C-alpha cells in the first residue's frame, strides 16, 4: 500500500484512487474496498457507489466546483483535491471553501503534483492529508510544516488573523515599543 502524509505523520493509505480514462470514460467500480472516485463517477453512479460495501470518497479536479458536492458530503469518508500542476493554485480556494463554507470536517487530501514546498500553504488552507507525487520522500517533507511559525492572514488553520490575535495579547504586537 502506498504511503501518504496524514495529520503530519507518514501512514499507509487505505484508499484506492479511481481515474477517468484518457478519453473521459468512467472507470469500473471495484466490488470492495475504500475507493476515491472522480466527481464524474459519483455524479453518474451515485446509487451504485452507495450500495456497495466499503467507504466512498470523491476527488475534485482543479477546475471542479466544490459546490457540486456540498449537499453530498455526509456520504463521504474523504474528499480530495487534485493539483494537475503545482502552479495551479485553484485547489487552495477549493479547500478553503470546503472547510469554511461547506463545513467539511473529514479528511481533506491534496493529490497530484504535490511535494514538500507546497505543504505549508496547503495545510493553512485546510488540507490534512497529502499524497506526494512519485519520487518524493514523505518523511523528509514533514519538515515543511515548520517552514514558518506564524502567518498574517486568516485561514482554515488560523481562523483569526494575526492582527486580531495581537490585540488579545496572544502574539507580540510590539505595542509601545
Amino acid at each position, binding site marked *: 500500500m502506498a504511503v501518504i502524509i496524514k495529520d503530519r505523520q507518514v501512514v499507509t493509505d487505505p484508499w484506492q484512487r479511481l481515474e477517468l480514462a484518457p478519453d473521459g470514460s468512467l472507470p469500473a467500480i471495484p466490488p470492495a474496498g475504500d475507493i476515491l472516485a472522480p466527481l464524474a463517477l459519483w455524479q453518474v453512479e451515485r446509487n451504485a457507489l452507495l450500495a456497495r460495501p466499503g467507504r466512498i470518497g470523491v476527488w475534485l479536479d482543479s477546475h471542479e466546483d466544490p459546490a457540486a458536492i456540498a449537499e453530498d458530503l455526509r456520504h463521504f469518508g474523504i474528499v480530495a483535491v487534485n493539483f494537475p500542476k*503545482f*502552479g*495551479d*493554485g*485553484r485547489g*487552495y*480556494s*477549493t479547500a*478553503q471553501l470546503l472547510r469554511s*463554507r461547506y463545513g467539511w470536517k473529514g479528511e481533506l487530501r491534496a493529490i497530484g503534483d504535490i*511535494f514538500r*514546498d507546497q505543504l*505549508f*500553504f*496547503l495545510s*493553512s*488552507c485546510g488540507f490534512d492529508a497529502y499524497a506526494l507525487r512519485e519520487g518524493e520522500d514523505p518523511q523528509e517533507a514533514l519538515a515543511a510544516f515548520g*517552514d*514558518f*511559525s*506564524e*502567518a*498574517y*492572514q*486568516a*485561514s482554515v*488553520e488560523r*481562523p*483569526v*488573523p*494575526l*492582527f*486580531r490575535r*495581537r*490585540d488579545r495579547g496572544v*502574539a*507580540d*504586537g*510590539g*505595542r509601545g*515599543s
Partner: protein
Amino acid sequence: MQASIFAGKTAMYRYDEIDQRLVDERVVQFRDQTRRFLAGKLSEDDFRPLRLRNGLYIQRYAPMLRVAIPYGLLATRQLRTLAHIARKWDRGYGHFSTRQNIQFNWPKLEDVPDILAELAKVQMHAIQTSGNSVRNITTDHFAGIARDEIVDSFVWCELLRQWSTFHPEFSYLPRKFKIAVNGAEADRAATFLHDVGLHAVRDPRGTGSDGASPGGEIGFRVIVGGGMGRTPIIGHVINEFLPWPHLLTYLEAIFRVYNRYGRRDNIHKARIKILVKARTPEKFREEVEAEWAHLKDGPSTLTAEEVRRVEGRFTRPAYGKLAGDDAGHAARLAAEPAFAAWARRNVHPHKVPGYAAVTLSLKKTGVPPGDATADQMDAVADLADRYSLGELRVSHEQNLILADVRQSELHALWQAAKALGFATPNIGLLTNIICCPGGDFCSLANAKSIPVAQAIQERFDDLDYVYDIGELDLNISGCMNSCGHHHVGHIGILGVDKNGEEWYQISIGGNQGRTTPSPLLGKEGVPQSGGGGAALGKVIGPSFAREQIPDVIEQLIRVYLGRRESEEERFIDVVWRLGIDPFKEHVYGSHHQRQASRNRSLAAA
C-alpha cells in the same frame, strides 16, 4: 475615529518580532530550496517558481535578483546595505526599476541566500518580487507629505504588505498581481493601470464634523483590471466607496474569484484584466459581491486598533517648527537662475511649513536610466542623513526622492547633488526618460532600450530647448511586457522584433493618470503639473530603426511646438486636442519617407 490616524506623517515602518521572524524564516526556507536544487534534488522546473517568488530570475547573462523596496520607502541604512550588496555580490551597481524595486544583474545563484540574509538584517527581502503572486505594493512617492493628502498611503500599503505576504490561498494565482494604493486627491500611483488600484476617498455622503475637512468617513475606490503588458486596459471602478474596515475581505473576494476563474491555459490571457473583460466588469462585480457576502464582517475585517498599531510602528519624522516659506531660499532663487531652474523642476511642495521634497535625478545622459553605483548609493544615503531625516523614496520614474528637506538647506543640497551628478534639472521633462533594462540585460527583450534613451538624451542636450518643450513623459520598453510603461508615456517607444531585427514602434497620447490635483494645477511652485486621466497611447504607424528614433522624436516635438496654442498647452494636450493625425502626417509625411518606411517594413516583414 480621529483623522490623524489616517493622515499622519510617516517615515519608516519598523518590523516587530513577528515581521522579522517571518522574513528570517523565508531566508532559511530559500537556503534549503537552493541547496536542494544545487544537489539535484529539486528539478529546474520545480525550482523556478520557488526562486521566482524570491525575486530570482535567470537572465540572459546571469541571474537577476529583484529586491523589494516596499512602497518605495528606504531608510539610509537600508540603502547602504544595497550598496554593500552591489559591491560584494554584484558588479558595483544596481538598477532601480519602475516598480519601486532594485535589481541586481550579476549575483551568483549560490550567493543569493546570503544576500537575502544580509537584507533581512535591515528589514528587507525579495519576497514575491516575481512569480504569480501579489507583488510589491506601490504608491505615490509623495505619500505622507503631499498637500492634497487624504490618507497616508504608506500605512495602508503596509497593511496590505502583511496581508499579501505568504497568503496561503493566493500564492499560486493565474498570473502576477500588482496593487497600487493612492492616498491623495491626485492619482500619482497610476491606480487605473494596476490589477487592483485603491484610491482613498472620503465618503461623498458624509460631511466633516469640524466643518473643515471636506467629507465623511474614509474609504477606497476600488479599480480592477487595469494594466499594461500586451493587452493594455484602463481599469474599471467596481466599487466607488468601500469603507476602509472592509478592505481585506473585499480584496479576498476579488482574489478568490480571480484565483478560481482566471485563465490558466494561456500565460498571455491570465491577468485579471482578461477575466474582467471576458465576464464584463458588471458581471465580475456581481461575482465579487456575491463572494464578499460570505466574507463581509468576518474576522479579516480591519479594526481601528490595527490601523493605529501599524501606523504606530512607523517612525515619525522629527520636523522642526518652522514659520513658513524660507526667506533666504526665496532670495537665492531670485539670485541664481541655475538654482531656480533646478528648483522649478526638482523641488516639490511639502505639507509641513518650511519643508520641501527633492528629486535626485538618476537620469544623467550616458547612464542607463535608474542605474546607480554603490558609491552613488552611499553618497545619496549621506545626503538623506544630512538633509532629509535619514529616509528616502524610490519613484516609479526611477529617481530618488528626499522627502523632508528644509527649504533653507535646498541650496546646499543642490550643490552637493550637482557635485555628485544627481542634479539634472529635468524632472517631468522629455529627458527624464523612463526606461526598462531592455536587451542589454533582459532575456525577454525584443530590442535594446538603454541606447535609445541615451540617443534621445544626447539629441536633446540643450536644456533651454527641453524647458521650452515643457512637461513630457517619454517611456521606453524593450518588449510587450511594458516594464518601461510605454503605453502611458506621452510618447511611448516599444521594442519589437521583426525577423530577428530590432525595430521600434512609437505611440503618442498615453498618460498615467491625473497626477496633480486640479486646485493646484497651474499654481506657482507646483511642478509636474499633469492633468487628464489615465489614457493609453496610440501607435502612429510602422516601426523605425534605432538610429531613426531621435529624428522621429524631434519631428513629433516640432509638430507640437508649431501647433500649441500657448506655452501652457503641453505636448499631451495638443495630441489630445488634435488627435494623432497631424503628428503621423509629419513623421511619415513626404512621399519619399513613406516609400522608405514601406520598403523597410517589406524588408523586415
